[in-house]
Protein backbone atom coordinates (compact mmCIF):
# COMPACT_ATOMS: atom_id res chain seq x y z
CA UNK A 1 0.00 0.00 0.00
CA UNK A 2 1.14 3.57 -0.72
CA UNK A 3 2.33 5.48 2.29
CA UNK A 4 0.17 8.07 4.00
CA UNK A 5 0.28 10.20 7.09
CA UNK A 6 -2.03 9.01 9.83
CA UNK A 7 -3.87 11.38 12.05
CA UNK A 8 -6.15 10.48 14.95
CA UNK A 9 -9.03 12.90 15.34
CA UNK A 10 -10.05 13.89 18.86
CA UNK A 11 -13.41 15.50 18.01
CA UNK A 12 -15.65 16.08 15.01
CA UNK A 13 -14.44 19.69 14.87
CA UNK A 14 -10.83 18.48 14.89
CA UNK A 15 -11.52 16.06 12.03
CA UNK A 16 -13.28 18.77 10.00
CA UNK A 17 -10.42 21.22 10.55
CA UNK A 18 -7.81 18.62 9.55
CA UNK A 19 -9.77 17.73 6.41
CA UNK A 20 -9.77 21.44 5.57
CA UNK A 21 -5.99 21.57 5.89
CA UNK A 22 -5.17 18.72 3.50
CA UNK A 23 -6.74 18.66 0.05
CA UNK A 24 -6.12 14.93 -0.40
CA UNK A 25 -6.97 13.80 3.12
CA UNK A 26 -9.53 11.02 3.60
CA UNK A 27 -11.57 9.93 6.58
CA UNK A 28 -11.04 6.37 7.74
CA UNK A 29 -13.79 4.70 9.78
CA UNK A 30 -13.69 0.87 9.59
CA UNK A 31 -11.24 1.15 6.69
CA UNK A 32 -12.81 -1.76 4.80
CA UNK A 33 -13.55 0.36 1.74
CA UNK A 34 -11.00 3.16 1.87
CA UNK A 35 -7.97 0.86 2.31
CA UNK A 36 -9.03 -1.17 -0.73
CA UNK A 37 -9.28 2.06 -2.70
CA UNK A 38 -5.76 3.12 -1.68
CA UNK A 39 -4.33 -0.35 -2.38
CA UNK A 40 -5.81 -0.28 -5.87
CA UNK A 41 -3.88 2.99 -6.36
CA UNK A 42 -6.94 4.65 -7.80
CA UNK A 43 -6.17 8.15 -8.83
CA UNK A 44 -7.01 10.76 -11.41
CA UNK A 45 -7.75 14.47 -11.60
CA UNK A 46 -11.03 13.97 -9.80
CA UNK A 47 -9.87 11.26 -7.39
CA UNK A 48 -6.48 12.06 -5.88
CA UNK A 49 -4.75 9.33 -3.91
CA UNK A 50 -5.15 9.96 -0.18
CA UNK A 51 -1.90 11.16 1.39
CA UNK A 52 -3.39 11.72 4.86
CA UNK A 53 -5.80 9.37 6.64
CA UNK A 54 -7.83 10.86 9.45
CA UNK A 55 -9.03 8.17 11.83
CA UNK A 56 -12.40 9.11 13.31
CA UNK A 57 -12.71 5.96 15.46
CA UNK A 58 -10.67 7.83 18.06
CA UNK A 59 -13.40 10.44 18.57
CA UNK A 60 -15.20 9.60 21.84
CA UNK A 61 -18.90 8.66 21.93
CA UNK A 62 -19.41 8.07 18.23
CA UNK A 63 -20.56 4.46 18.40
CA UNK A 64 -23.99 4.10 20.00
CA UNK A 65 -27.60 3.09 19.44
CA UNK A 66 -30.27 5.05 21.32
CA UNK A 67 -33.93 4.28 20.85
CA UNK A 68 -36.81 6.17 22.34
CA UNK A 69 -40.48 5.83 21.31
CA UNK A 70 -40.87 9.60 20.86
CA UNK A 71 -37.43 10.64 19.58
CA UNK A 72 -36.86 7.56 17.43
CA UNK A 73 -33.52 5.94 16.72
CA UNK A 74 -30.12 7.60 16.87
CA UNK A 75 -27.11 5.77 15.48
CA UNK A 76 -23.58 7.05 15.96
CA UNK A 77 -21.84 7.04 12.57
CA UNK A 78 -19.09 4.78 13.92
CA UNK A 79 -21.49 2.03 15.06
CA UNK A 80 -20.54 -1.20 13.29
CA UNK A 81 -22.97 -2.95 10.97
CA UNK A 82 -22.85 -5.98 13.30
CA UNK A 83 -23.94 -3.85 16.26
CA UNK A 84 -26.79 -2.27 14.27
CA UNK A 85 -27.99 -5.65 12.98
CA UNK A 86 -27.90 -7.25 16.44
CA UNK A 87 -29.65 -4.40 18.26
CA UNK A 88 -33.01 -5.58 19.60
CA UNK A 89 -34.36 -2.00 19.32
CA UNK A 90 -33.51 -1.97 15.61
CA UNK A 91 -34.85 -5.50 15.04
CA UNK A 92 -38.12 -4.73 16.80
CA UNK A 93 -38.89 -1.27 15.44
CA UNK A 94 -37.08 -1.19 12.10
CA UNK A 95 -36.84 -4.77 10.80
CA UNK A 96 -36.00 -3.51 7.29
CA UNK A 97 -32.92 -1.71 8.62
CA UNK A 98 -31.85 -4.71 10.73
CA UNK A 99 -31.95 -6.95 7.65
CA UNK A 100 -30.14 -4.35 5.53
CA UNK A 101 -27.36 -4.06 8.14
CA UNK A 102 -26.71 -7.82 8.12
CA UNK A 103 -26.69 -7.98 4.30
CA UNK A 104 -23.35 -6.38 3.29
CA UNK A 105 -20.25 -8.49 2.74
CA UNK A 106 -19.26 -10.99 5.46
CA UNK A 107 -19.28 -11.18 9.28
CA UNK A 108 -15.62 -10.10 9.50
CA UNK A 109 -16.28 -7.00 7.37
CA UNK A 110 -19.47 -6.14 9.27
CA UNK A 111 -17.48 -6.39 12.52
CA UNK A 112 -15.36 -3.40 11.46
CA UNK A 113 -17.48 -1.71 8.76
CA UNK A 114 -19.44 1.19 10.18
CA UNK A 115 -22.91 2.40 9.27
CA UNK A 116 -21.41 5.79 8.33
CA UNK A 117 -18.82 4.12 6.11
CA UNK A 118 -21.47 1.94 4.52
CA UNK A 119 -23.43 5.04 3.50
CA UNK A 120 -20.30 6.90 2.35
CA UNK A 121 -18.55 3.99 0.57
CA UNK A 122 -17.48 4.55 -3.03
CA UNK A 123 -19.03 2.65 -5.95
CA UNK A 124 -17.79 -0.70 -7.19
CA UNK A 125 -17.82 -0.24 -11.00
CA UNK A 126 -14.88 -2.42 -12.08
CA UNK A 127 -13.51 0.25 -14.38
CA UNK A 128 -13.58 2.71 -11.51
CA UNK A 129 -11.74 0.19 -9.32
CA UNK A 130 -9.12 -0.46 -11.98
CA UNK A 131 -6.21 1.97 -12.03
CA UNK A 132 -5.92 1.88 -15.82
CA UNK A 133 -9.32 3.31 -16.65
CA UNK A 134 -9.39 7.13 -16.45
CA UNK A 135 -13.18 7.35 -16.56
CA UNK A 136 -15.49 10.30 -15.83
CA UNK A 137 -15.68 9.45 -12.17
CA UNK A 138 -11.92 9.77 -11.80
CA UNK A 139 -12.01 13.08 -13.65
CA UNK A 140 -11.44 11.63 -17.12
CA UNK A 141 -13.60 12.05 -20.21
CA UNK A 142 -14.96 8.59 -20.97
CA UNK A 143 -17.26 5.94 -19.50
CA UNK A 144 -15.85 2.48 -20.20
CA UNK A 145 -19.03 0.68 -19.18
CA UNK A 146 -21.10 1.98 -22.11
CA UNK A 147 -19.19 -0.03 -24.70
CA UNK A 148 -17.73 -2.51 -22.20
CA UNK A 149 -18.89 -4.96 -19.56
CA UNK A 150 -21.99 -3.46 -18.01
CA UNK A 151 -23.95 -6.39 -16.56
CA UNK A 152 -23.86 -4.90 -13.06
CA UNK A 153 -24.49 -1.30 -14.05
CA UNK A 154 -27.48 1.03 -13.87
CA UNK A 155 -30.83 0.51 -15.56
CA UNK A 156 -32.33 3.76 -14.29
CA UNK A 157 -31.03 7.33 -14.25
CA UNK A 158 -27.63 6.54 -15.72
CA UNK A 159 -26.12 9.35 -17.75
CA UNK A 160 -22.42 10.05 -18.22
CA UNK A 161 -21.68 7.48 -15.52
CA UNK A 162 -23.67 4.28 -14.97
CA UNK A 163 -22.60 3.15 -11.51
CA UNK A 164 -25.07 1.65 -9.09
CA UNK A 165 -24.92 2.83 -5.52
CA UNK A 166 -23.48 -0.11 -3.54
CA UNK A 167 -24.90 0.49 -0.06
CA UNK A 168 -27.48 -1.89 1.40
CA UNK A 169 -28.30 0.33 4.35
CA UNK A 170 -28.94 3.49 2.30
CA UNK A 171 -32.21 2.27 0.68
CA UNK A 172 -33.44 1.11 4.10
CA UNK A 173 -32.67 4.49 5.68
CA UNK A 174 -34.45 6.39 2.89
CA UNK A 175 -37.48 4.10 3.14
CA UNK A 176 -37.65 4.92 6.87
CA UNK A 177 -37.38 8.68 6.23
CA UNK A 178 -34.07 8.92 8.12
CA UNK A 179 -31.94 12.05 8.37
CA UNK A 180 -28.18 12.57 8.38
CA UNK A 181 -26.54 14.76 11.00
CA UNK A 182 -23.50 16.32 9.42
CA UNK A 183 -20.61 18.33 10.86
CA UNK A 184 -18.80 20.88 8.71
CA UNK A 185 -16.74 24.05 9.00
CA UNK A 186 -19.91 26.05 9.77
CA UNK A 187 -21.14 23.65 12.43
CA UNK A 188 -23.80 20.95 12.43
CA UNK A 189 -26.66 20.54 9.97
CA UNK A 190 -29.35 18.02 9.06
CA UNK A 191 -29.90 16.51 5.64
CA UNK A 192 -32.74 14.03 4.94
CA UNK A 193 -31.29 10.90 3.30
CA UNK A 194 -33.88 11.40 0.57
CA UNK A 195 -31.79 14.43 -0.53
CA UNK A 196 -28.37 13.09 0.49
CA UNK A 197 -27.32 11.19 -2.64
CA UNK A 198 -26.60 12.85 -5.98
CA UNK A 199 -26.37 11.45 -9.48
CA UNK A 200 -23.60 11.96 -12.07
CA UNK A 201 -25.39 14.86 -13.77
CA UNK A 202 -25.13 16.90 -10.54
CA UNK A 203 -21.52 15.93 -9.86
CA UNK A 204 -19.92 12.85 -11.37
CA UNK A 205 -16.95 12.97 -8.97
CA UNK A 206 -18.92 12.14 -5.83
CA UNK A 207 -22.08 10.35 -4.73
CA UNK A 208 -23.41 12.51 -1.91
CA UNK A 209 -24.00 16.20 -1.23
CA UNK A 210 -21.25 16.22 1.42
CA UNK A 211 -18.26 18.46 0.73
CA UNK A 212 -14.67 17.34 1.28
CA UNK A 213 -14.63 18.78 4.80
CA UNK A 214 -18.06 17.60 5.93
CA UNK A 215 -18.54 14.45 8.00
CA UNK A 216 -21.58 12.29 8.69
CA UNK A 217 -21.83 12.13 12.48
CA UNK A 218 -25.19 10.57 13.29
CA UNK A 219 -28.15 8.88 11.64
CA UNK A 220 -31.60 9.71 13.00
CA UNK A 221 -34.63 7.56 12.16
CA UNK A 222 -38.03 8.88 13.24
CA UNK A 223 -40.19 6.60 15.41
CA UNK A 224 -42.26 4.33 13.19
CA UNK A 225 -45.81 5.62 12.66
CA UNK A 226 -48.62 3.35 13.85
CA UNK A 227 -49.09 0.24 11.65
CA UNK A 228 -45.71 0.61 9.96
CA UNK A 229 -44.14 -2.45 8.43
CA UNK A 230 -40.69 -2.49 6.89
CA UNK A 231 -38.73 -5.01 4.87
CA UNK A 232 -35.40 -5.28 3.03
CA UNK A 233 -34.65 -7.83 0.31
CA UNK A 234 -31.58 -8.35 -1.85
CA UNK A 235 -30.89 -10.46 -4.92
CA UNK A 236 -27.25 -11.47 -5.44
CA UNK A 237 -25.44 -13.66 -7.90
CA UNK A 238 -23.76 -15.63 -5.11
CA UNK A 239 -25.70 -16.68 -2.02
CA UNK A 240 -23.60 -14.54 0.32
CA UNK A 241 -20.69 -12.09 0.34
CA UNK A 242 -21.89 -10.20 -2.70
CA UNK A 243 -23.17 -6.79 -3.69
CA UNK A 244 -26.80 -6.46 -4.72
CA UNK A 245 -27.87 -7.08 -8.29
CA UNK A 246 -31.06 -5.43 -7.10
CA UNK A 247 -32.16 -4.69 -3.56
CA UNK A 248 -35.32 -3.15 -2.16
CA UNK A 249 -36.40 -1.48 1.05
CA UNK A 250 -40.08 -0.83 1.69
CA UNK A 251 -41.61 0.85 4.71
CA UNK A 252 -45.34 1.52 4.75
CA UNK A 253 -48.33 2.02 7.00
CA UNK A 254 -50.82 -0.69 6.20
CA UNK A 255 -54.28 -0.91 7.76
CA UNK A 256 -56.51 -3.91 7.01
CA UNK A 257 -54.34 -4.73 4.04
CA UNK A 258 -54.66 -1.20 2.59
CA UNK A 259 -51.51 0.83 1.84
CA UNK A 260 -51.98 4.20 3.54
CA UNK A 261 -48.61 5.75 2.92
CA UNK A 262 -45.07 4.49 2.42
CA UNK A 263 -41.83 4.45 0.53
CA UNK A 264 -40.31 2.03 -1.95
CA UNK A 265 -36.56 2.35 -2.53
CA UNK A 266 -34.45 0.23 -4.87
CA UNK A 267 -30.71 -0.44 -4.62
CA UNK A 268 -28.42 -1.72 -7.36
CA UNK A 269 -30.39 -0.11 -10.20
CA UNK A 270 -29.26 3.53 -10.35
CA UNK A 271 -26.32 5.79 -9.44
CA UNK A 272 -28.18 6.69 -6.24
CA UNK A 273 -30.57 4.63 -4.13
CA UNK A 274 -33.69 4.90 -6.30
CA UNK A 275 -36.88 6.16 -4.69
CA UNK A 276 -39.64 4.48 -6.71
CA UNK A 277 -42.20 7.26 -6.39
CA UNK A 278 -44.22 5.77 -9.27
CA UNK A 279 -44.64 2.59 -7.26
CA UNK A 280 -45.58 4.58 -4.16
CA UNK A 281 -48.25 6.47 -6.13
CA UNK A 282 -49.63 3.24 -7.57
CA UNK A 283 -49.91 1.67 -4.12
CA UNK A 284 -51.42 4.57 -2.21
CA UNK A 285 -54.92 3.78 -0.91
CA UNK A 286 -54.96 0.34 -2.54
CA UNK A 287 -55.69 -3.00 -0.95
CA UNK A 288 -52.42 -4.83 -1.48
CA UNK A 289 -52.38 -7.95 -3.59
CA UNK A 290 -50.12 -9.39 -6.29
CA UNK A 291 -51.87 -7.50 -9.11
CA UNK A 292 -51.63 -4.13 -7.41
CA UNK A 293 -47.96 -4.80 -6.62
CA UNK A 294 -47.30 -5.82 -10.23
CA UNK A 295 -48.86 -2.57 -11.45
CA UNK A 296 -46.56 -0.65 -9.10
CA UNK A 297 -43.59 -2.59 -10.46
CA UNK A 298 -44.55 -1.94 -14.06
CA UNK A 299 -45.11 1.77 -13.42
CA UNK A 300 -41.56 1.93 -12.02
CA UNK A 301 -39.69 -0.11 -14.59
CA UNK A 302 -41.34 1.45 -17.61
CA UNK A 303 -38.71 4.14 -17.12
CA UNK A 304 -35.81 1.66 -17.23
CA UNK A 305 -33.17 2.13 -19.93
CA UNK A 306 -31.06 -1.02 -19.65
CA UNK A 307 -27.59 -1.18 -21.18
CA UNK A 308 -26.32 -3.88 -23.55
CA UNK A 309 -25.88 -6.58 -20.88
CA UNK A 310 -28.18 -5.75 -17.98
CA UNK A 311 -31.78 -5.98 -19.17
CA UNK A 312 -32.15 -8.98 -16.82
CA UNK A 313 -32.13 -6.50 -13.93
CA UNK A 314 -35.45 -5.06 -15.13
CA UNK A 315 -37.14 -8.40 -14.52
CA UNK A 316 -35.44 -8.86 -11.16
CA UNK A 317 -36.48 -5.37 -10.09
CA UNK A 318 -40.11 -6.05 -11.08
CA UNK A 319 -40.19 -9.33 -9.21
CA UNK A 320 -38.53 -7.96 -6.10
CA UNK A 321 -41.05 -5.09 -5.93
CA UNK A 322 -43.91 -7.59 -6.09
CA UNK A 323 -42.28 -9.84 -3.48
CA UNK A 324 -41.42 -7.07 -1.05
CA UNK A 325 -44.76 -5.27 -1.27
CA UNK A 326 -46.86 -8.42 -0.94
CA UNK A 327 -44.68 -9.66 1.95
CA UNK A 328 -46.02 -6.76 4.03
CA UNK A 329 -49.56 -8.20 3.98
CA UNK A 330 -48.79 -11.92 4.17
Amino acid at each position, binding site marked *: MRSFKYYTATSWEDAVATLGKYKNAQIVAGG*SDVLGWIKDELTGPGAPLADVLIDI*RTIPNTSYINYDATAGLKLGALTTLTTVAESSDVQKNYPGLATAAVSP*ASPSIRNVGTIGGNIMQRPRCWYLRGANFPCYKKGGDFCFSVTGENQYHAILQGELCYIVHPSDTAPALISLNATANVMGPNGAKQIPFDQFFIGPRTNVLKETVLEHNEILTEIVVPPPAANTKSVFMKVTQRGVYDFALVSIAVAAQIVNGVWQDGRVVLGGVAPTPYRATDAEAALKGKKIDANVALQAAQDTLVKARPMSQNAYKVDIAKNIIVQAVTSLVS
Partner: protein
Amino acid sequence: MKTILHLRVNGQDHEVYVAVHKTLLEVLREDLNLTGTKHGCELGECGTCTVLVDGEPVLSCLALPIELQGREITTVEGLADGATPHPLQTAFAELGAAQCGYCTPGVLMASKTLLDHNPHPSRDEIKHALAGNLCRCTGYAKIYEAVELASKT
Protein backbone atom coordinates in the same frame (compact mmCIF):
# COMPACT_ATOMS: atom_id res chain seq x y z
CA MET B 1 5.86 7.96 8.53
CA LYS B 2 7.12 5.27 10.97
CA THR B 3 5.99 4.71 14.49
CA ILE B 4 6.38 2.41 17.49
CA LEU B 5 3.39 0.13 18.02
CA HIS B 6 2.53 -1.93 21.07
CA LEU B 7 0.60 -4.97 19.96
CA ARG B 8 -0.70 -7.86 22.02
CA VAL B 9 -0.68 -10.98 19.88
CA ASN B 10 -1.52 -14.49 21.12
CA GLY B 11 -1.17 -13.35 24.72
CA GLN B 12 2.27 -11.79 24.25
CA ASP B 13 3.19 -8.11 24.17
CA HIS B 14 5.25 -6.93 21.21
CA GLU B 15 6.87 -3.64 20.37
CA VAL B 16 7.47 -3.01 16.68
CA TYR B 17 8.77 -0.01 14.76
CA VAL B 18 6.87 0.07 11.46
CA ALA B 19 5.45 2.36 8.79
CA VAL B 20 1.89 3.42 9.69
CA HIS B 21 0.54 2.34 6.31
CA LYS B 22 1.48 -1.29 6.91
CA THR B 23 -1.58 -3.48 7.37
CA LEU B 24 -1.98 -5.82 10.32
CA LEU B 25 -1.43 -8.71 7.88
CA GLU B 26 1.93 -7.28 6.82
CA VAL B 27 3.07 -6.54 10.37
CA LEU B 28 2.10 -10.04 11.55
CA ARG B 29 3.90 -11.75 8.70
CA GLU B 30 6.87 -9.47 8.11
CA ASP B 31 7.65 -7.96 11.49
CA LEU B 32 6.42 -10.62 13.91
CA ASN B 33 7.21 -13.64 11.71
CA LEU B 34 3.73 -15.04 12.25
CA THR B 35 3.26 -16.39 8.73
CA GLY B 36 0.32 -18.65 9.58
CA THR B 37 -2.03 -15.83 8.59
CA LYS B 38 -2.22 -15.93 4.82
CA HIS B 39 -2.07 -13.19 2.23
CA GLY B 40 -4.79 -13.59 -0.41
CA CYS B 41 -6.78 -10.98 -2.30
CA GLU B 42 -5.69 -8.07 -0.06
CA LEU B 43 -9.09 -6.44 -0.69
CA GLY B 44 -11.47 -8.06 1.76
CA GLU B 45 -12.81 -10.55 -0.75
CA CYS B 46 -11.44 -13.94 0.36
CA GLY B 47 -11.13 -14.17 4.16
CA THR B 48 -7.85 -16.10 4.28
CA CYS B 49 -6.26 -13.28 6.32
CA THR B 50 -8.88 -13.56 9.10
CA VAL B 51 -7.57 -13.06 12.64
CA LEU B 52 -9.45 -12.40 15.86
CA VAL B 53 -9.53 -9.02 17.58
CA ASP B 54 -10.98 -9.29 21.08
CA GLY B 55 -12.35 -12.66 20.00
CA GLU B 56 -14.19 -11.47 16.88
CA PRO B 57 -13.07 -12.21 13.30
CA VAL B 58 -11.53 -9.29 11.41
CA LEU B 59 -9.71 -9.13 8.06
CA SER B 60 -6.08 -8.33 8.77
CA CYS B 61 -5.51 -7.13 5.19
CA LEU B 62 -7.91 -4.22 5.79
CA ALA B 63 -6.89 -3.42 9.36
CA LEU B 64 -4.34 -0.83 10.45
CA PRO B 65 -2.42 -2.13 13.48
CA ILE B 66 -1.95 1.39 14.83
CA GLU B 67 -5.65 1.33 15.58
CA LEU B 68 -5.50 -2.03 17.37
CA GLN B 69 -3.02 -1.25 20.13
CA GLY B 70 -4.22 -2.59 23.45
CA ARG B 71 -6.61 -5.06 21.81
CA GLU B 72 -6.22 -8.83 22.06
CA ILE B 73 -5.13 -10.13 18.64
CA THR B 74 -5.25 -13.90 18.03
CA THR B 75 -3.75 -15.61 14.99
CA VAL B 76 -3.77 -19.27 13.99
CA GLU B 77 -0.46 -19.68 15.85
CA GLY B 78 -2.36 -18.92 19.05
CA LEU B 79 -5.00 -21.57 18.52
CA ALA B 80 -3.24 -24.65 19.89
CA ASP B 81 -2.72 -25.05 23.62
CA GLY B 82 1.04 -25.60 23.66
CA ALA B 83 1.64 -28.90 21.85
CA THR B 84 -2.06 -29.83 22.00
CA PRO B 85 -3.95 -28.82 18.87
CA HIS B 86 -7.29 -27.07 19.22
CA PRO B 87 -10.24 -29.47 18.70
CA LEU B 88 -10.93 -27.65 15.42
CA GLN B 89 -7.39 -28.38 14.21
CA THR B 90 -7.74 -32.05 15.17
CA ALA B 91 -11.09 -32.31 13.40
CA PHE B 92 -9.77 -30.60 10.24
CA ALA B 93 -6.81 -33.02 10.17
CA GLU B 94 -8.95 -36.09 10.83
CA LEU B 95 -11.52 -35.31 8.13
CA GLY B 96 -9.13 -33.90 5.55
CA ALA B 97 -10.95 -30.58 5.61
CA ALA B 98 -7.89 -28.85 4.17
CA GLN B 99 -6.69 -29.57 0.65
CA CYS B 100 -4.23 -26.90 -0.46
CA GLY B 101 -4.74 -25.42 3.01
CA TYR B 102 -4.50 -21.79 1.99
CA CYS B 103 -7.93 -20.87 3.32
CA THR B 104 -7.54 -23.00 6.46
CA PRO B 105 -6.04 -20.48 8.92
CA GLY B 106 -8.84 -18.01 8.20
CA VAL B 107 -11.51 -20.71 8.34
CA LEU B 108 -10.15 -21.97 11.67
CA MET B 109 -10.23 -18.49 13.21
CA ALA B 110 -13.78 -17.72 12.06
CA SER B 111 -14.86 -21.18 13.29
CA LYS B 112 -13.24 -20.60 16.67
CA THR B 113 -15.34 -17.47 17.25
CA LEU B 114 -18.45 -19.39 16.23
CA LEU B 115 -17.79 -22.26 18.67
CA ASP B 116 -16.83 -19.86 21.46
CA HIS B 117 -20.22 -18.14 21.14
CA ASN B 118 -22.25 -21.14 20.11
CA PRO B 119 -20.71 -24.51 21.07
CA HIS B 120 -23.26 -26.57 19.11
CA PRO B 121 -24.09 -24.67 15.93
CA SER B 122 -26.46 -25.92 13.26
CA ARG B 123 -25.22 -26.40 9.69
CA ASP B 124 -26.87 -23.10 8.74
CA GLU B 125 -25.17 -21.26 11.58
CA ILE B 126 -21.82 -22.66 10.46
CA LYS B 127 -22.49 -21.51 6.88
CA HIS B 128 -23.35 -18.03 8.12
CA ALA B 129 -20.24 -17.75 10.27
CA LEU B 130 -18.00 -18.88 7.40
CA ALA B 131 -19.74 -16.80 4.73
CA GLY B 132 -16.66 -14.60 4.42
CA ASN B 133 -14.13 -17.40 3.94
CA LEU B 134 -13.73 -18.60 0.39
CA CYS B 135 -12.30 -22.06 -0.31
CA ARG B 136 -11.31 -23.02 -3.85
CA CYS B 137 -10.66 -26.68 -3.11
CA THR B 138 -12.95 -28.48 -0.70
CA GLY B 139 -16.42 -27.47 -1.87
CA TYR B 140 -17.00 -26.63 1.82
CA ALA B 141 -18.68 -29.92 2.78
CA LYS B 142 -15.60 -31.25 4.61
CA ILE B 143 -15.11 -27.90 6.33
CA TYR B 144 -18.67 -27.90 7.67
CA GLU B 145 -18.32 -31.51 8.79
CA ALA B 146 -15.06 -30.74 10.59
CA VAL B 147 -16.62 -27.82 12.47
CA GLU B 148 -19.49 -30.13 13.44
CA LEU B 149 -17.03 -32.81 14.59
CA ALA B 150 -15.10 -30.27 16.66
CA SER B 151 -18.34 -29.10 18.24
CA LYS B 152 -18.94 -32.61 19.53
CA THR B 153 -15.56 -32.97 21.24
